[in-house]
């Protein structure tokens, strides 16, 4: 009996520490949106919120890259972010839409790393906080 109680105690402490460590690292897409909102207000005093529709257009709009290629976010992520995409090196990219992949937009550093890389790859410049927020809003809105 005592053994059982000890085991239970050990298990619950393990569980709570696991939950706690996850909480420390994690963010939610909503929390990230708040951060980008603060940034967007700084970048543009007349900021009027994020728009899922604008994010969807941003995701699919093709740009002529300096290499001559037509590129968009959808080139690798496909036009349906609920589906798996494929990198140019043939690696599967898990879905971007939150509904299909709840892991998305839960790690601030990871999100910033990929915005920084992919914005330069597609747009050949950094993305604005407005664009990032619209895009996340779009991915949240997909059901």
């Amino acid at each position, binding site marked *: 009996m005592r053994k059982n109680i000890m085991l239970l105690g050990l298990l619950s402490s393990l569980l709570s520490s696991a939950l706690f460590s996850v909480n420390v690292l994690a963010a939610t897409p909503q929390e990230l949106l708040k951060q980008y909102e603060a940034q967007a207000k700084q970048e543009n005093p007349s900021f009027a919120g994020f728009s899922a529709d604008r994010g969807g257009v941003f995701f699919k709009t093709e740009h002529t890259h300096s290499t001559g290629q037509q590129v968009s976010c959808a080139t690798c992520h496909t036009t349906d972010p609920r589906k798996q995409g494929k990198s140019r*090196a043939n690696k599967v990219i898990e879905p971007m839409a939150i509904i299909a992949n709840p892991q998305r937009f839960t790690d601030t550093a990871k999100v910033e790393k990929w915005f920084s*890389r992919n914005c330069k*790859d597609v747009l050949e410049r950094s993305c604005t906080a407005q664009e990032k927020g619209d895009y996340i809003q779009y991915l949240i809105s997909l059901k």
Partner: protein
Amino acid sequence: MNNMHTSPPVNNDLNRLFLGAVCDRESDDARLQTAPTENKHITDLVDESENNRVRNYMKKAMQFLILISTITATSALLASGGIDGGGNAMSPVTNEKWKVECSGCHMLYHPGLLPERSWLKMMNGLDKHFGENASLDVATRTEITNFLVANSAGKSTNRRSSRIDQSIPNNVTPLRITETRYFTSKHDEVSPTTFKRKSIGSAANCIACHKGAEKGDFSESQIRIPR
């Protein structure tokens, strides 16, 4: 074995006549089992069948033991990297950051596939990494670079890495493994159209045909070219 025979020498000679030269090369047991029995006394037969049963049982047990020990020895040999010197298998090195950061867009390439100078050049040009931006923060980049250098082709003892290293002229710093002479000579029988198959993508996608590629295992027995 011969002293266990209960049949007289005449019988042996008869058996030889019946079964011919082929059986001469086979074991005594085989001859006894297939030999015609008309010339044998009943008592002999009873004794013989009892002996045979015991002998067959022992033989099967021995065969089983030999089979098991062969399998064990072979797998141990394979795991240790083969018969020759350092073996073909690249060492099972790992680094958490390398694993995560270097497999986001492509398969995970083992450090033993390129020499030190190639990895240094690659890690210093991540903003233009084969046409894509793969920038890392300084700390992560330094850790991964050190890992790649420490386990690079010239520093590995396995035969495959050494051969890759030796196939690259000193004045050349390749970024693509597919450009090394080692690679081209090993894949000369694979046509360019095969590499372009949807299931493969390109010659850089080792893992499409070498399922152990990310662990540095490119052994012939593991190759399966998808349709």
